[in-house]
């Protein structure tokens, strides 16, 4: 039995984690919450070295140092735009670690002494840990656009999936009956295959929901490891993440007007095949930066709809200057933040906060959407799917049912776009062909600078 004071220390760490999650739910306390969580994790690590009989101290410390270096480097090097894939990777390695821990536990069992329930928990940890690992790697590849972001489905997919589930069940039973390394490795391999299959049919825009789901999965494996290792802290922390992560997954899906089941398996019903990948040649109206500058300068009310394209072009700083200039001219400007603008819920807020856009100019969808009717200009910068009317008019479109910003209700709509390529969800946007819509082609940063220069010229 672990010493009493060590148990108290673990309890303190568990409380830290609860406070951390609580703190992260409110903007005012979020940063402090995260730091408290980190303190709890540090405390737990110190305790484990003090009370447990740890051999191979040097190699372990070296391994921790290596992991810390990689983690810190990754966390500091990453562009804010690439945040979602980094979180996916961090989650994946956590799941992998949990699976490895369970495999090692298995090899250290004495013959025939382990209760069946413990073996089941072991099988669960190995399986779900591998699912989380492989699934996270695929989400990373999708978000990094190293593979197609469109849903991948092939004939026979459901059969393969069914076979995968059967294999998982079979090797789990095998592992419980004959606890051997062979079954453990087999189970890990099957889990990895299932993880890949789970994420393949998910369209690019929905991938963040899957990250959150896999995050919850990893939490559960950590909880299971806690049971196996008789460590209460792991049980509590893992369960917290498992349940909070499940709820968060549902909240995210709701924000996109989707159900989790629909996100995971919607593509199998064939709905998403509607996506157009061809570039349309229908006529559109385009304008020069000078025209748009005049339009903006003499407007009363401008609403900006920022999207991922803005962040990719790193144009958010120029955009803020533009908005400042307009505000000085007495134009009322707000940013309309769609819940899933960017690549993840809340991602756009992070990106604009990075450009030091005042928090009060960022309006959430419910608040700003009715105001488009009064707006003279809706300036859509690098966004597409979040203003696509197809979400309301075209059942069968992958984004059908997602709440959208009604930019089309503004008197004029200006789209800053790099090309006529469709958005992340891969569907064409009818709004581009509306008579009130003007297109401003070019790289967002480049065009934004030209626009800013034209506007300055008008102001002088």
């Amino acid at each position, binding site marked *: 039995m672990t010493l009493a004071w060590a148990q108290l220390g673990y309890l303190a760490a568990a409380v830290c984690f609860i406070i951390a999650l609580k703190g992260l*739910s409110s*903007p005012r306390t979020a940063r402090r919450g995260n730091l408290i969580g980190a303190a709890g994790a540090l405390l737990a690590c110190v305790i484990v070295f003090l009370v447990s009989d740890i051999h191979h101290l040097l190699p372990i410390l070296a391994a921790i140092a290596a992991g810390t270096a990689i983690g810190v480097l990754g966390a500091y090097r990453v562009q804010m735009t690439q945040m979602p894939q980094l979180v996916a990777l961090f989650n994946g390695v956590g799941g992998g670690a949990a699976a490895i821990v369970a495999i090692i536990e298995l090899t250290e069992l004495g013959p025939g002494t382990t209760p069946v329930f413990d073996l089941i928990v072991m099988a669960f940890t190995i399986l779900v840990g591998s699912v989380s690992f492989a699934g996270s790697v695929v989400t990373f590849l999708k978000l990094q656009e190293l593979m197609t972001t469109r849903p991948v489905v092939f004939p026979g997919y459901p059969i393969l999936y069914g076979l995968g589930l059967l294999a998982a069940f079979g090797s789990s039973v095998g592992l419980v009956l004959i606890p051997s390394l062979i079954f453990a490795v087999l189970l890990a391999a099957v889990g990895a295959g299932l993880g890949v299959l789970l994420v393949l049919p998910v369209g690019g825009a929905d991938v963040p929901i899957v990250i959150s789901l896999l995050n919850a999965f990893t939490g559960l494996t950590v909880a299971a490891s806690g049971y196996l290792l008789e460590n209460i802290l792991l049980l509590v*922390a893992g369960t917290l993440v498992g349940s909070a992560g499940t709820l968060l997954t549902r909240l995210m899906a709701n924000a996109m007007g989707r159900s989790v089941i629909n996100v995971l398996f919607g593509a199998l019903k064939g709905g998403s095949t509607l996506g157009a990948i061809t570039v349309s040649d229908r006529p559109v109206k385009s304008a020069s930066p000078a025209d748009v500058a005049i339009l903006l300068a003499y407007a009363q009310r401008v609403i900006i709809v920022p999207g991922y394209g803005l962040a990719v072009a790193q144009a958010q700083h120029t955009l803020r200057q533009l908005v400042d200039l307009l505000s000085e001219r007495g134009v009322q400007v707000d940013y309309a933040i769609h819940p899933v603008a960017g690549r993840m819920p809340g991602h756009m807020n992070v990106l604009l906060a990075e450009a030091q856009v005042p928090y009060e100019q960022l309006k959430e969808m419910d608040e700003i959407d009715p105001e488009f009717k009064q707006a003279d200009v809706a300036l859509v910068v690098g966004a597409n799917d979040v203003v696509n009317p197809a979400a309301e008019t075209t059942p069968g479109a992958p984004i059908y049912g997602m709440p959208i910003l009604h930019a089309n209700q503004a008197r004029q709509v200006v789209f800053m776009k790099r090309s006529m390529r469709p958005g992340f969800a891969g569907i064409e946007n009818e709004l581009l062909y509306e008579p009130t819509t003007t297109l401003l082609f070019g790289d967002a940063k480049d065009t934004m600078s030209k626009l800013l220069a034209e506007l300055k010229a008008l102001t002088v």
Partner: protein
Amino acid sequence: MNTDPIIWLTIFVLSIFVGVEVISKVSSTLHTPLMSGANAIHGVILIGAILVAGTAQSVPILVLGLVAVVLASINMVGGFVVTDRMLIMFSRPKRAVEKSARRELEK
């Protein structure tokens, strides 16, 4: 394993409710940092990795255990650091706003 399973089950069930309760009211603005923060918390599997690596009896097991330690530390440390980086950006503009408000007052 010797501890009464009922106790483990109790802790498990209560933790589920705590997890749901603490994040039940979170604005979509904070979904990303919250996910990242929760992600960092399950990095505490590092403790499990240290335990199995520290009691390894053979070299292959030790190596495997060390791999788990590296992975878990990436998860935990990277997760907390990247969450903090995101959250700094949330707090920074507020200070900038206060500063400009003060400037207005001085005028």
